């Protein structure tokens, strides 16, 4: 994969990321068909399919934990972005209209009570455990959840669908991260290491590896593996690998972006609205200030 400095530092061997995991049976019971195509559809589905307190529509954290960063993707699918192409200057202020559309969407979802109580302090495991206990209609989660269901609750897995993220009003933003291999710069056996990389990418070898792992394919040569057909949830990984964008997209994945992500900046803006009852203007202003401080350090 080519890095911002234009050089290849590591070679990918698998894609991974969050996907839309849905209770197809609850959706069907509500008289709905197929997966929601847009975030607006997903909210409508959630309202209709949930039966609180037995099940809740959108089981997504809005907390200070990194799983809450999915809200940044929802915001970006409304047309906003954090920084300029170079990843140096914050431009979110130029996207006020798009951000406010996103905040309106979130506020509508909040008022519709599709979130389970407690999401504002959830850690990164709570959406998993809520889905595992059968109390969720939609979650955004990696395939680890499905691997747990496969081993512990195959009945629930059979009722579960795996999809790419819905579209926003402007675009479909579905981030994908990766696993990769690199050669140490100071290795004493560079040729041997290179050969190891070539051998490890060999389709027969990767077929065996991917059948027992949770990675999506990084080469077209891997698309024919049986694992994608055998396990329904692995199909979701293929779709995600084919359609997803690099983490941070459309922003540059750099230190500044990473730091604002670990600070869960966008989720904190949402919490200001629903926990602190701040106005959109005040919450947005604070977010711009925080982003400015973070990006300013790396400019």
């Amino acid at each position, binding site marked *: 994969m080519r890095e911002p400095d234009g050089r290849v530092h590591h070679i990918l061997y698998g894609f991974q990321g969050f996907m839309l995991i849905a209770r197809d049976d609850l959706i069907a019971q509500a008289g709905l068909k197929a997966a929601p195509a847009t975030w607006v559809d997903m909210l409508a589905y959630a309202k209709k399919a949930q039966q609180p*307190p037995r099940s809740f529509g959108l089981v997504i954290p809005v*907390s*200070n*934990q990194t799983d809450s960063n999915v809200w940044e993707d929802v915001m970006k699918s409304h047309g906003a972005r954090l920084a300029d192409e170079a990843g140096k200057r914050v431009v979110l202020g130029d996207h006020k209209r798009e951000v406010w559309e996103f905040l309106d969407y979130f506020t509508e979802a909040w008022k519709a009570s599709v979130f*389970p*109580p*407690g*999401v*504002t*302090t959830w*850690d990164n495991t709570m959406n998993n455990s*809520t889905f595992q*206990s059968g*109390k969720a209609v939609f979650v955004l989660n990696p395939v680890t959840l499905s691997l747990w269901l496969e081993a512990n609750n195959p009945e629930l897995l059979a009722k579960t669908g795996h999809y790419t993220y819905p579209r926003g009003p402007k675009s479909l933003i579905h981030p994908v991260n990766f696993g990769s291999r690199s050669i140490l710069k100071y290795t004493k056996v560079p040729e041997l290491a290179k050969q190891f990389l070539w051998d490890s990418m060999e389709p027969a070898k990767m077929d065996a590896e991917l059948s027992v792992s949770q990675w999506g394919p990084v080469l077209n040569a891997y698309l024919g593996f049986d694992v994608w057909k055998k396990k329904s949830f692995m199909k979701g990984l293929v779709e995600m690998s084919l359609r997803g964008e690099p983490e941070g997209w459309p922003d540059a994945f750099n230190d500044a972006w990473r*730091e604002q992500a*670990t*600070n869960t900046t966008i989720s*904190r803006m949402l*919490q*200001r609205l629903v*926990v*602190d009852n701040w106005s959109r203007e005040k919450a947005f202003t*604070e977010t711009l*200030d*925080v982003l400015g*401080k973070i990006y300013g*350090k790396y400019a």
Partner: protein
Amino acid sequence: MAMRQRSLAVAVPVPETVPRRPRRVDREQLGGMAMLLPTVLILVGLVLYPFVYSIWLSFSDKAVGSAGRFVGLANFRYVIAWPQFSAALVNTVVFTVCAVAIKLVLGMVVALVLNQQIRGRNFFRAFLLLPWVMPAFVVYLVWRWLYDPLSGLINYALIDLGLLQTPIAFLSERSTAMASVIVAHSWRAFPFFAISFLAGMQTIAQELYDAAQVDGASRWQQFRHVTLPGLYQIIGVVLLLSTIWTANAFEPVYLLTGGGPSDATMVYTLLAYVMGMVNLRLGEAAAVSTLFLPLLVGLVLAVTILLHKKATA
């Protein structure tokens, strides 16, 4: 009139220098210093060096994977302007003062009860230590489950008793989050107070209570004029230690709320953790700790002075 002094140089015979063995006292002093050396080295290595290094870090832009260079007061300016800093300042004081006060009262009440001749006293004395000896991780995960709005015991009980119609998300609402964290932390830590006070009560002579009874003192008066004065020194030490431990507590907030909802339970230890361990900006994390140092010293001094006045009054 000033007198002029005259000096006179005289040759004095110098005795022949004889190398003498170190006197017994010198040998003892050297031996003592040698014995202290390991302790001094440990203190320098494990206390002084990290302390000085953290001060240095707070003036550098050190991040994980980079060497770091001197940046003056930049970290302090950045941290003070950070939106959660003021919340962390207030929350740390609120958390520390409230939790220590609750632990003090609860610990004293339980110690007084366990100091009476009650059935199963030894069992209860041993049982008392359970929250204190359990790993913090286990305690706070249990409390998180107790508080859970969907499957937590507290909500179930309150709804079953007809006291609630809909569950309360204790940890996720600004109005209840800090109080919930304080209660959980106090429950875990009060046995230290109770057991220390109980030990102190054992040393108060029974004759003092007998004399007070003869004088017609009520239970409250016995507590006020016999028990409390007898415990002042212990209360002082316990309060001092607990203030330091509580102000530096990390697990209760990290495990129960992660500083949320929003910044309702953000304390300085968590802010330093986020900046240092999550954002990997060690200089900023050190600046947070350094900025809170005067506050902690102030809290400790306030407790010490207050108790010293009480004890010497």
